């Protein structure tokens, strides 16, 4: 087991964002978190990349409590693509990618030859090598997202956290990015809004609703019409993909369910 949440509880100014999350992610596993807006997906991820300290409970990486590590040490184990875009300053793409090496340095010493090579390979993998000398602020949203992925890769983490990595990407780049995640040997936890892409990408899905983990398991197991109605408040048909057999969620606009189930459920769990 590479990453584990043990009874992780997050409360900010009296507002409960996450309740007793228990979740284990095995080495090399790709786990997707899905759920409606405000269900605690990003909150859970933020506890893992140290942007947030859980009010109670423990997040473990490779068995150790990450709160016992200093930020530098945990950043050597866990890399993250956050929802923060870009930068204040017009750094070049290769400079931003090189920032991924920050946790492996104490001072300001320049990158070693091995590290430079690492950066080049990562940029090649996400197909941004041709942008190396361009300013980060002049890139399109999709290009920027790939730069940030490359930055996370050169961090050489054990665990990769991706908070809505497909934001701003067109469908081809979404598929390419998720295929790359799939090919990687890393332990990956990612938040996705597109349930079909999540089903195609992830070994297991965890479903959050109102700060509670309401289901976890293989996509076939989790993505059922009942759960979709219960958690997302939608009437959907689930079919098997003709080629991959992954569950695919189909919608029809006039089949929308009355919104009551999901909302009442959230309110109940918040009390």
């Amino acid at each position, binding site marked *: 087991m590479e990453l584990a949440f043990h009874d992780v509880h997050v409360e900010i100014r009296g507002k409960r964002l996450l309740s007793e999350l228990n979740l284990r992610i095995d080495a090399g596993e790709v786990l997707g978190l899905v759920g409606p807006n405000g269900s605690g997906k990003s909150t859970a991820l933020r506890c893992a*990349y140290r942007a947030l300290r859980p009010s109670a409970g423990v997040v473990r990486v490779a068995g150790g409590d990450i709160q016992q590590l200093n930020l530098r040490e945990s950043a050597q184990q866990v890399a993250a693509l956050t929802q923060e875009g870009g930068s204040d300053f017009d750094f070049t793409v290769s400079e931003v990618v090189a920032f991924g090496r920050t946790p492996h340095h104490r001072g300001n010493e320049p990158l070693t030859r091995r590290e430079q090579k690492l950066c080049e390979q990562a940029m090649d993998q996400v197909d941004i090598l041709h942008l190396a000398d361009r300013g980060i602020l002049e890139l399109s949203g999709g290009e920027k997202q790939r730069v940030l992925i490359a930055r996370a890769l050169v961090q050489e983490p054990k665990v990769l956290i991706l908070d809505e990595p497909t934001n701003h990407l067109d469908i081809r780049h979404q598929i390419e990015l998720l295929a790359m995640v799939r090919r990687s040997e890393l332990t990956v936890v990612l938040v996705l809004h597109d349930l079909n892409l999540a089903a195609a990408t992830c070994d297991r899905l965890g479903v959050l609703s109102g700060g509670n983990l309401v289901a976890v398991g293989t996509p076939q197991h989790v993505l059922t019409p009942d759960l979709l109605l219960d958690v997302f408040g939608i009437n959907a048909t689930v079919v098997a993909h003709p080629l991959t057999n992954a569950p695919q969620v189909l919608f029809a606009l006039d089949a929308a369910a009355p919104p009551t189930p999901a909302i009442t459920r959230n309110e109940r769990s918040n009390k």
Partner: protein
Amino acid sequence: MAIIALSGASARRHLEPVRRKSTTSIYAMVMLLTLVLAGSILVAIGLGSAVVPPPDTARYLWAAVTGGDITAEELTRYQIIWNIRTPRVLLAAAVGAGLAAVGTAIQALVRNPLADPYILGVSSGASVGAVVVSLFGALSVLGIYAVSVGAFLGALVATSLVYLIAYGRVGVTPLKLVLTGVALSFGFQAIMSVLIYFTPTAESTSMVLFWTMGSFGAATWGSLPVVIAVVLTGILALRRYSRPLDVMSLGDESAASLGINTTAIRKSLFVLTAVMTGAMVAVSGAIGFVGLVIPHITRMIIGATHAKLLLIAPFIGAILMVWVDLLARTMVAPRELPLGVLTALIGVPVFIVLMQRRGYVFGGR
């Protein structure tokens, strides 16, 4: 590197070496700027109401440093050069370098392109401290340094107040710091105005002008070493934070995920920049525009990484300041122009031209 199994397509593609600007060009630039700065200092020391050619200036400086001889008829010129102009020009260089470095760091620290060294209340706090000292004769045991010390203390009190007020239960956010700093600056300015309004003395006007526009007219060999020491160690200390400053501009969450403790670093940088700015304001008043514009100009020339910025920006700031001060004291001699007037006159057009030519961006298009 086993992080990702390369796909067939990208594995086949030849890995081209990433073009990177050579580090040698930075060192060449430093060499060049050092020469320009030394030359500017020499020329500026020689020029003024009594013009001394650079070779003579160099000879006097050499004599002063090594204890060599000069002729009796040269004594007056020597004294002007060594006792009046040299500390003044060196102070201008030191303050220019310090303001450029602090401005660079502050803009990254509070993540705001409009930030300058005075944004967190330093200059207005210093002026209140100085006015209190000179009007009420506090700290009189310190003699001629009373006003400077009062200004320095005022600066520190002001920034501490800003920090304490901005520090909420969730910690200091950059925006909260800026807003608190701006708000308190107005408060301190009001206090200074009231003090001067109700205690009018002959020096009131010049005092207001000095603290709001700046001048190096008060430079002496007595205070110069302290300022130079604070500025130089300050710049070296800031340079140690080059990489954290880079990473912090990606946002606090990204910085945390890259192992940077933004809260702790903000705190250290806050203290460091407050002490540096306080020391500079105490001897030269608040010289606007340099700390705001030099960082931007330097970024346009050499890019945004702070390891380079905090090396080059101080040189550019120092050189600019030496020339600005020279103009300030020669243009309408024997009167002096306030420095803030000239920095704005020179800085604004340079900034606009550069901004349009280089397609400069800060914080998106």
